[in-house]
């Protein structure tokens, strides 16, 4: 029998409470299953699997105004403990010394090739041209400010060698910028939320996206789907959906570590998260029609989860607006919001959150010593990031709906956190 509600608000409040609660448990169960199946009692990151062959790999590093980071990035890439690789760095019309720095590095490292764009073309075009310039079937793409772990290439290649259906592999981004509260919270976020969701999605069999900062591709898979689209704000979400809609597998490899810089200002973080949210909405809208095929059924839960999370954000907005109006004017009883201060539901969600953090630290602790110290800071995560994700989801949907198709996405230099020797902010 359908439940009977006297109030319109009650089902909305139930949805606001139950959706994050049960999704959190689904992620936890999925991540634990993945952990006990693929990670528990396995060797460390340095204990790489023996491969039956070591095919040539091109590591692609798109750069736009990366003079401050490019030396570290290239040095880390060159330290790969893999016998057969080259590096293509793309200088995408940098206005600083990135181009000259890369040319100088190419003198130092014979494996390094440099591709210059005289005009800013954007990351997706950089990746497309690197794929064209690469003679190899396998591409590992990392950001120009990221530092790839020496064993990452072998861990990634293990999936391509053993799985003919594997079209892409996504690595494990680790946050380097921890000077401020925002940085510290993101350390927890990447462990507790992103790592956990990736594992749970992998158990299901389809992922929402590869991590743009460290992901690897089989060129024949990319060629089949037409490589990266240049008019999407997040080329990584877009290519992930197209590969999976073409029945290529995407694997997650937690041992493929990549140390990354993240924003440490509100403004930087807002811009980044808005871009992510808009990219998700753009991708979902673009492939909505392709989803209505029985062949695409394995992607339906991914689409459903995204749509429900956007609906959740808008429901929260409606409830907040009604609550605010109710403070000043009398509303009909069925629209009255009793309180925005969570009672028991808040306590249950809080406990769930703590449990989720504890499990994620246990799972992720093997990749980073002393991660448990971050637990102290993670208490901020539910309030701060759910709020920012909520707001960006609400703003991003109309932006995605109104965006003109075909608009080329080009580089804008992001906030990359507080420099090593600078003073921290928040």
């Amino acid at each position, binding site marked *: 029998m359908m439940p009977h509600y006297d109030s319109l608000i009650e089902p909305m409040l139930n949805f606001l409470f*139950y959706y994050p609660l049960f999704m959190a448990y689904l992620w936890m169960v999925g991540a634990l299953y993945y952990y006990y199946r693929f990670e528990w009692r396995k060797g460390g990151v340095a204990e790489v699997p023996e491969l039956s062959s070591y095919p040539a790999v091109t590591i692609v590093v798109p750069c736009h105004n990366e003079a401050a980071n490019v030396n570290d990035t290239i040095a880390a890439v060159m330290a790969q403990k893999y016998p057969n690789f080259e590096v293509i760095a793309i200088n995408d019309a940098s206005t600083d010394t990135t181009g000259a720095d890369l040319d100088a590095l190419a003198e130092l490292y014979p494996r390094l*090739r440099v591709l*210059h764009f005289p005009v800013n073309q954007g990351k997706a*075009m950089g990746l497309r041209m690197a794929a*064209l*310039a690469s003679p190899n079937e396998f591409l590992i793409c990392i950001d120009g400010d990221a530092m790839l772990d020496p064993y990452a290439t072998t861990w990634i290649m293990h999936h391509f060698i053993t799985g*003919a*259906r594997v079209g892409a592999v996504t690595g494990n981004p680790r946050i380097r910028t921890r000077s401020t509260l925002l940085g510290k919270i993101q350390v927890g976020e990447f462990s507790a939320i992103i790592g956990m969701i990736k594992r749970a999605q992998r158990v299901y069999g389809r992922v929402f996206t590869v991590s743009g900062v460290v992901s690897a591709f089989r060129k*024949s898979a990319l060629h089949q789907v037409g*490589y990266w689209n240049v008019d999407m704000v997040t080329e990584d979400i877009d290519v992930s959906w197209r590969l999976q809609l073409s029945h290529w597998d995407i694997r997650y490899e937690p041992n493929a570590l990549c140390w990354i810089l993240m924003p440490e200002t509100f403004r930087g973080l807002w811009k980044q998260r808005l871009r992510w949210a808009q990219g998700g909405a753009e991708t979902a809208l673009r492939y909505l029609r392709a989803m209505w095929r029985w062949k695409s059924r394995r992607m339906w839960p991914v689409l459903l989860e995204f749509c429900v999370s956007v609906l959740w954000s808008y429901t929260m907005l409606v409830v907040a607006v009604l609550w605010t109006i109710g403070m000043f004017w009398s509303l009909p009883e069925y629209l009255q919001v009793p309180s925005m201060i969570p009672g028991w539901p808040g306590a249950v969600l809080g406990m769930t959150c703590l449990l989720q953090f504890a499990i994620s630290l246990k799972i992720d602790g093997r990749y980073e010593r002393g991660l448990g110290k971050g637990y102290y800071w993670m208490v901020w995560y539910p309030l701060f990031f759910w709020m920012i994700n909520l707001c960006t989801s609400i703003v991003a949907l109309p932006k995605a709906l109104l965006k003109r198709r075909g608009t080329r996405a080009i580089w804008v230099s992001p906030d990359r956190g507080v420099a090593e020797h600078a003073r921290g902010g928040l």
Partner: protein
Amino acid sequence: MSKLVINNPGGAHWMQRLSQRGLTFIFWVVFGLLFRPILTLLAWLLGGHFFSEAMVENHGYLLLLDKLWFYLLVIVVISALLIGWASYNLLRFRNNERRNRQPDPVDVTAQAALYGLDQLQVSQLQQQRRMVVEIDDQGRPLLAPT
């Protein structure tokens, strides 16, 4: 020289470790019962008698248990669905992967055709160590003719 303190919990059987931890936990609870009079006094000070009235005498705990039972049920169902789905796929495809031959690598001809270039142009690009590439309005690279 060996370490003076030998701390190797991994040396014991997992059942042994679990039972030791479980028994110790139970003993902590039993031990805590010794402090019941003090806890009762504190609870009274903090209004614990209201709790006793609402939750115990008026059977409020039944409503709470109902709620928790519902949560547990949903969590068990969604967990079973996810793990069941993963296990089903594992059993179905473990030794029955239809695509077990590595795909043919993309050749230069196919790549060149995508951008309307000739094969030699792409081959040359793939051998250069320093490249300057301009892109036209259609997103195609403008490479020097061969």
